[in-house]
């Protein structure tokens, strides 16, 4: 362990760790370090960084160059870290990550399966740098690509390079980025605009947020390169208003970039002018749709329009516009820096490069990951994700956000790329990956997404506005035990209609969660409709909780955790649930260590 030189302590301040109070840990570390008067030759710097990825084990603290990785750090652990690790070069054993694959604790993040299998391009700096420091970004090679582009390449050469790289849009549809740029560059009327779509609204997705918070300059650099390629001088970054930290870090980064001459007039002495401004979103999911987003920037209601004419021809204020999402922009500098050939060597034939996912739901290692395209779902969920939480059984994984689909266990070896996911009835989407176990009801999942989409449908076109609602009504009936046998056919028919007739991507893809669950989990729908049972025990009207007396050890944990005082009995004796008081929240089942809490259908057919 080095005793000299600079030491950097990186405290993760991504969304997961922040909600675990990592900011308090950061402040405490700073205070303790200045108090301890750490020797002059060791310059210790504490940095609040963006997301390190392993949110499940947060707050995360890394110490460089020692390569020590602490998890679950509390404020009360700080004195020990300072005393042992910083002053005496010892490792604090209890804060190390336990790596299940080798069955022991490991010191370096590189020894964990979670990090080992990942490949970070878009996230190359997230968690490594202080997002408020442009020097940190430049130090890691930032703005180098921009310098080369402006001094050596023509706009046409930039576009050719992006085309050759095979980069496809990371926001959902996977449209080839280079082609989009070329179409816009061809338009001969001005002004032209470039837009960054940071209106990440998918429930269960926080990739773009982490990039904007953790490495804002990579997005700005990508946009300047894109603007140069298409001939635009004005750009907008549209960010969800809820992402206040992303807005703050991005605004700060824009100011720094202006100061250093990476934005503004005559960038790096090239005679090329470009500047960006931030537009805050208003909390409408449909504004993630490109034409709705442009309407929103114009100060109008965020409704999409029919795209007979594409936005590369007539977009924002009727002018040629290139819109890409955050992750796409963040990939651009890497491609220009390391070359299209290198980039296109990563991934599969039609999906190049890497993809960032937020791996959430019932998986051990919840967090933010980036993997090469083409990795299988199994590798992602079981190797990186560490398998299903609580040792339960894997049931499905949902990709593509609310308009994606659920992929069942039988397809777990599916490679993750644009085309394979589409063929399975789902889609890449922006990269939410939600893992579900046997305690997840697929009918309820479909209902959940449709509830979300029915609220977020802007109401402009009838198929989407009315179709989603009718489908939702049917799903509500099924979940409440009033489903009819022909409901399933009606659902499928309505779904097809929505796909065909809706105006924008929101409506066209809205039936996906229903259609894929119908395709892969029809049994579960039939159980709800015919037997009035919810096999997963989620639909409250179809579920009765009870305690298996032969398994109950009388520990009383369920009684303690029941919010409605429905568990009756005394410690040491088997407990029982009073059905009339039970609100079916499942708390008892989750806390029971003996598997004594069971569920059965409403009609008392024991499972």
């Amino acid at each position: 362990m080095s005793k000299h030189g600079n030491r950097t302590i990186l405290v993760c301040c991504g969304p997961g760790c922040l909600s675990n109070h990592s900011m308090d840990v950061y402040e405490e570390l700073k205070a303790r370090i200045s108090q301890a008067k750490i020797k002059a030759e060791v310059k210790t710097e504490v940095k609040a960084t963006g997301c390190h990825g392993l949110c499940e084990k947060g707050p995360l603290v890394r110490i460089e160059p020692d390569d020590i990785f602490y998890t679950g750090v509390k404020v009360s652990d700080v004195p020990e870290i300072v005393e042992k690790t910083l002053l005496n070069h010892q490792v604090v054993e209890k804060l190390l990550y336990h790596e299940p694959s080798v069955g022991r604790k490991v010191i370096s993040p590189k020894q964990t399966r979670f990090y080992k299998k990942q490949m970070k391009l878009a996230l190359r700096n997230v968690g490594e740098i202080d997002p408020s420091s442009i020097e940190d970004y430049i130090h890691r090679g930032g703005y180098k690509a921009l310098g080369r582009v402006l001094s050596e390449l023509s706009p046409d050469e930039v576009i050719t390079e992006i085309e050759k790289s095979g980069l496809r849009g990371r926001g959902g549809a996977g449209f080839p980025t280079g082609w989009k740029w070329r179409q816009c560059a061809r338009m001969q009327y001005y002004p032209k605009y470039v837009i960054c779509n940071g209106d990440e609204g998918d429930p269960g997705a926080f990739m773009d947020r982490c990039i904007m918070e953790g490495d804002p300059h990579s997005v700005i650099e990508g946009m300047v390169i894109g603007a140069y390629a298409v001939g635009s001088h004005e750009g907008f970054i549209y960010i969800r208003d809820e992402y206040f930290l992303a807005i703050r870090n991005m605004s700060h980064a824009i100011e720094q970039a202006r100061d250093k001459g990476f934005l503004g007039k005559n960038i790096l002495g090239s005679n090329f002018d470009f500047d960006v401004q931030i537009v805050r979103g208003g909390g409408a999911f449909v504004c993630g749709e490109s034409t709705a987003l442009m309407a929103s920037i114009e100060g109008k209601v965020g409704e999409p329009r029919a795209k007979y004419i594409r936005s590369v021809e007539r977009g924002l204020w009727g002018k040629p516009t290139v819109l890409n999402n955050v992750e796409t922009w963040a990939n651009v500098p890497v491609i220009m820096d390391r070359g299209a050939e290198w980039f296109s060597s990563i991934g599969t034939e039609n999906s190049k490069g890497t993809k960032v996912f937020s791996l959430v739901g019932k998986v051990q290692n919840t967090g933010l990951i980036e993997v090469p395209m083409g990795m299988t779902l199994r590798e992602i969920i079981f190797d990186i994700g560490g398998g299903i939480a609580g040792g339960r059984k894997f049931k499905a994984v949902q990709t593509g956000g609310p308009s994606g689909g659920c992929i069942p266990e039988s397809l777990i070896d599916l490679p993750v790329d644009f085309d394979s996911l589409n063929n399975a009835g789902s889609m890449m989407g922006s990269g939410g990956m939600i893992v579900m176990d046997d305690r997840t009801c697929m009918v309820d999942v479909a209902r959940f997404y449709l509830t979300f989409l029915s609220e977020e449908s802007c109401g402009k076109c009838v198929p989407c506005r009315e179709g989603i609602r009718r489908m939702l009504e049917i799903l509500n009936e099924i979940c409440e035990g009033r489903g009819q046998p022909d409901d399933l056919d009606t659902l499928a028919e309505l779904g097809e209609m929505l796909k065909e007739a809706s105006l924008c991507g929101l409506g066209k893809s809205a039936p996906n969660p229903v259609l894929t669950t119908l395709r892969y989990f029809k049994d579960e729908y039939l159980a709800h409709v015919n037997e009035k049972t919810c096999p997963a025990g989620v639909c409250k009207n179809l579920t009765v909780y009870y305690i298996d007396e032969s398994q109950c050890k009388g520990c009383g944990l369920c009684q303690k955790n029941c919010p409605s005082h429905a568990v009756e009995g005394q410690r040491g004796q088997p407990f029982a649930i009073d059905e009339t008081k039970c609100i079916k929240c499942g708390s008892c089942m989750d806390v029971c260590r003996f598997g004594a809490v069971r569920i059965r259908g409403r009609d008392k057919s024991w499972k």
Partner: protein
Amino acid sequence: MELKDFSYARTILEQYPPERRFLLAILQDIQKHYNYIPRPILEMLRDYLDVPLSKLYSVATFYKALSLKPKGRYVIKVCDGTACHLKSSQSIIDEIKKVLKIVPGSTTGDGKFSLETVNCLGSCAVSPVMVINDRFYGRVTPSRVREILEEYGRLENEQTWK
């Protein structure tokens, strides 16, 4: 309703040039300052931007971040994103509904609490999550709900509890 001082709204407006494109940003600032969008300010905005009131109304009702009714002093946001939903956020919402006797999207009679559901706060690792004003509560269980709400002072409708 009590008479309110809307003079600060003028200061907010004048930070922006009188162009339609700044409408959403202005409304968001007003929402932040006043906790809602008062009608007199919408009228002020109509004159400032020269946009008909009906258009302003449609924007103010379209975006979720904006509200035409005052929100409570404590805004409870329960995340009902996918990860939280899978981890029973509905039970959390049900429990709050029972305790505060309000449904999502409404405010208690005393103006103390507003209940909202939101779609993903990006804190899926500690789901289910709820946020009261700016404070995060992770891994919430129905039994912790009452405990958490009590941190915000005695609850007025105490008698409804068993």
